């Protein structure tokens, strides 16, 4: 390889003045433009939102388990929304709506991509910061604003938006249809516009950073899978989020300016509305054109993180690096043409149903490839069960369990009877909820030393993992069977229907499991916040990983590397390479230093390097590998 002998002659002088900024509290912790600080801001905001959304889910789980019981404490906190200690039906719908919105957008999109793209893209590709640090800061503050506005809707008279997280009009357009569609929905829409602005600024930044700012030697095919995943996720977001804004703006017009994009032929009670010519189906097309890529925006970073974590902790190269990337690309492309599978039974032309069924089931192929590659990576590994590794294995398990039920729902004919039932709830909570959150937690445990310079307690991590893993399955597995019995989702109580009575005991069980799962998060929260201040000091490379972020000093410095940015010579997965006496070879180690372990394919057809290697081998006969 020609770069072996070349020295890095890039001029990095322009970065020298980085250390001389005068940092105030405000510029360091609040309006920070440093990608590492912004990542932490995203993470902690994401964690707070996750705790809130989880709390909301416990509230409605209480209602489902004990629909007849009263909980006076609820009235204390919720006031008129829980008169007599019982949650009201419209507030129940607000709870599920806001739970879904927060989890999907604020936790699993901003909390996940925002945290790890910001932290890892510059660190793993070898850049001093994002392409536009200012835009990056703006992205966080727009996100923060979106969170505040969304939460503020809990403090208004008519309550938060309550038309489901997909806010299908006309329900979401007509304040007379449900209380939450008054001011609460307006706030939801404003919050969402800010959120999309935030994720667009983030996405543009991620894409341009990955494309333009890679260090010397870091060609696209030497990037860690995390970066590939973040990169493709950002592309997905940039292309699909604007469509949501378009939809949202039209909805705002319908709500406030009397247009009829989504409304037609509606009579509320006996009041005939003047709207004519619109179609509620249009909203669904616009929403799901974002909405489906959105689920991949949620899961792809998690898959990227787990690829890295599984490889590091199995002490093995990720199996099928290229196949992993091609399947990510496949998922990215296909995810744009599958949105209709959310709409099989909306009454859209059945011809479309057939088409979308085909594209949907095709997307299962790259997903299957990824799963098998994870399994092959574990095979004959030397697995270290760090908490991150446990969560990554948990992700694989959830991804399989939830992915397989997608084959039922992606099949238009089967979807007829499963659509909008608890089967769907179980499906997406496993494949996108649990799997993505496990990916996020794996990332937190794995890169915590990089973020805070300290280690988290691994024992509390084990406790956290096992309680969460088991309770997630106990919560979501039984829900499939409710769906197969035809129990629809978003039902306030199962008391009105004879055939649902038999599921009440299951609901009690599921609620207890959910409560245990929620309490298990206390182990994480304690571990996380306690370790920031009191955790064990982290070594530079605690997991013995190959990627570039572990070559930076433990103390954060603006610009990441004190001297020159290291040059990259090899792919990031040289773990347990035969002939090497250590089981990991960082990306910054040139092949000239690892003559004993070089393999023919390392040289990518560079004949000069191959010749040097052959000459060296002739001179140093290798002792046979035992």
């Amino acid at each position: 390889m020609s770069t072996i002998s070349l020295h890095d002659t890039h001029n990095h002088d322009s970065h020298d003045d980085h250390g001389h900024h005068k940092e105030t509290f405000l510029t360091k912790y609040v309006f920070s433009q440093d990608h590492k600080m912004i990542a932490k801001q995203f993470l902690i905001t994401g964690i707070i939102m996750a705790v809130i959304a989880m709390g909301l889910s416990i509230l409605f789980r209480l209602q489902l388990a004990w629909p007849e019981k009263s909980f006076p404490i609820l009235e204390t906190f919720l006031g008129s929304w829980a008169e007599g200690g019982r949650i009201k039906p419209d507030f129940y719908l607000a709870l599920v709506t806001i739970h879904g919105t927060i989890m999907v957008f604020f936790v699993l999109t901003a909390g996940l991509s925002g945290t790890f793209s910001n932290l890892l893209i510059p660190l793993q590709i070898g850049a001093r910061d994002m392409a536009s640090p200012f835009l990056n800061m703006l992205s966080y503050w727009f996100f923060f604003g979106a969170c505040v506005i969304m939460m503020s809707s809990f403090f208004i008279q008519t309550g938060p938006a309550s038309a489901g997280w997909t806010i299908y009009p006309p329900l979401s357009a007509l304040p007379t249809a449900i209380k939450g569609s008054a001011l609460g929905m307006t706030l939801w829409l404003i919050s969402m516009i800010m959120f999309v602005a935030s994720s667009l600024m983030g996405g543009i930044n991620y894409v341009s950073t990955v494309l333009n700012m890679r260090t010397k030697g870091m060609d696209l095919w030497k990037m860690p899978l995390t970066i590939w995943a973040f990169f493709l996720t950002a592309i997905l977001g940039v292309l699909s989020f604007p469509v949501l804004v378009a939809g949202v703006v039209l909805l705002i017009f319908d709500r406030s300016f009397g247009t009829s994009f989504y409304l037609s032929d509606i009579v509320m009670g006996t009041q005939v509305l003047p709207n004519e010519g619109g179609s509620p189906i249009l909203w669904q097309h616009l929403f799901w054109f974002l909405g489906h890529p959105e689920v991949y925006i949620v899961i792809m970073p998690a898959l990227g993180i787990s690829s890295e974590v599984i490889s590091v902790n199995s002490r093995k190269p990720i199996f099928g690096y290229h196949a992993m990337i091609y399947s990510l690309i496949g998922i990215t492309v296909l995810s744009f043409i599958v949105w209709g599978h959310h709409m099989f039974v909306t009454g859209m032309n059945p011809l479309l149903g057939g088409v979308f069924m085909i594209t949907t089931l095709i997307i299962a192929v790259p997903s299957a490839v990824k799963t098998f590659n994870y399994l092959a990576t574990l095979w004959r590994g030397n697995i270290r069960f760090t908490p991150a590794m446990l969560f990554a294995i948990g992700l694989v398990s959830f991804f399989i369990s939830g992915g397989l039920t997608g084959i039922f729902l992606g099949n238009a004919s089967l979807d007829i009877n499963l659509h909008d039932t608890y089967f769907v709830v179980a499906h997406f909570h496993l494949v996108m909820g649990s799997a993505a959150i496990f990916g996020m937690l794996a990332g937190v445990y794995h890169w915590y030393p990089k973020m805070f310079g300290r280690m988290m307690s691994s024992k509390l991590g084990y406790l956290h993992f096992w309680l969460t893993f088991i309770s997630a399955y106990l919560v979501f597995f039984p829900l499939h069977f409710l769906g197969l019995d035809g129990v629809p989702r978003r039902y306030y109580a199962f008391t009105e229907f004879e055939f649902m009575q038999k599921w009440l005991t299951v609901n009690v069980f599921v609620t207890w499991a959910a409560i245990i799962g929620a309490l298990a998060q206390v182990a994480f929260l304690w571990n996380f916040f306690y370790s920031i201040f009191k955790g064990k000091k982290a070594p530079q490379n605690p997991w013995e990983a190959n990627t570039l972020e572990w070559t930076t000093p433990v103390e954060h410095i603006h610009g990441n590397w004190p001297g020159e940015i290291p040059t990259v010579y090899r792919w990031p997965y040289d773990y347990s390479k035969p002939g090497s006496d250590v089981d990991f070879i960082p990306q910054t180690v040139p092949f000239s230093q690892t003559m004993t372990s070089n393999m023919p394919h390392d040289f990518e057809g560079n004949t000069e390097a191959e010749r040097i290697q052959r000459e060296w081998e002739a001179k140093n006969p290798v002792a046979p590998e035992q």
Partner: protein
Amino acid sequence: MSLRKFISNKTIAALAVILTVFASTSAFAQAAGAAAETVAKPIDMGPVYKTVIFYTMAFLLVCLFVAIIGKALKVYELTREAQDQPKGINWNTVNGVLFALFLIVGLYGVYWEYTVHGKMILPEAASEHGKKIDQMFNITLIITTIVFIATHIILFVFAYIYRSTGKRKAYYYPHNNALERIWTIVPALVLTVLVLMGFLTWRSIFYKIEDPNNKPINIEITSSQFAWAIRYPGADGIVGLKNYKLINSINALGIDFKDKNTLDDQTADEMVIPVNKPVRLILTSKDVLHSFYMPHFRIQLNTVPGMTSYFEFTPTITTEEMKAKTNDPKFAYLFLCAKICGEGHYKMQKEVRVVSQAEYEAWVKKQGTYLTDDLRKEFNLPVAAAPAAVAPADSVAKDTSAVKTNQLALKK
């Protein structure tokens, strides 16, 4: 010798841990108990279990318990370190074994779920197309269950077998094109089969060729917050026109009685349909989106304001037969709302009865018409006219049959 020492050390340490924990918790419990006794003599625990304080204290107790175990473990490990002994607890082994245990317990759990909860699901499909759906569901279920079990066994067994022992080096195995080709092509083939089956079934459900000798019964369903309205076509077999602009307090559906086909349209409180006769549902909505969901027949289609959708099906099992099959004398078919529509979403239901042709005919005769005297006044119709307003006969039926394609179409 060293092994024995190792074991005895370990057991002693473990015992110590357990003892400390028990001592502290029981001490805590005693103290709490004593406090409780002095305060309140009659020990009715009912109200206590209802207080938030009780659960908060219980949780704090658990936290304390965890903290004590954590500390004990730390002490144990530090002692071993100080004595220059190998690490006391190999967490790789612990987690590996836990994964293996999880696999075994989990497999049993899945078996239990399939057999216990699996028996509580919907009974067999009561419609022609539903049988096809069920068949395909079963095939999909078998395939996915096999994959589910196999991959999980592989995942957790690998986690157990290949846990780090500190003695082994991992096997450098970056790729194998043959393997990757296999696990791209095999899922692709299986999915192709499923897609083809799904596609053909889907077509057979939504693209029906009408048999002129076996015309379906038209039934119109209108959803509103939070009720269903059912309209039978009357003697002419045609559900007449309606217009949302005509909706008022006496004309809840906005039926346009200038259309002669509406004059004999009948109301119904429940949906009664004859067995083995095709039924064509005309689905509309008055206000927001709802979803017409009839789970026993494997039917679901959203009702959309401003748009009419159609679903044709043939019921195959009468209610009485289903009562016998499910061994449930109270069994009843129903339809309900499956799309979030407001605060009464969880209440929208109507009963469905599948009966013999004779029973159906007897029942349908008894149903009243939508046309009332008030409406006659409003539409300037003769008030005393005979209700059986001239069976408009087949000529009209043929005219409208062109519109009655089985494809969904915008009403406009």
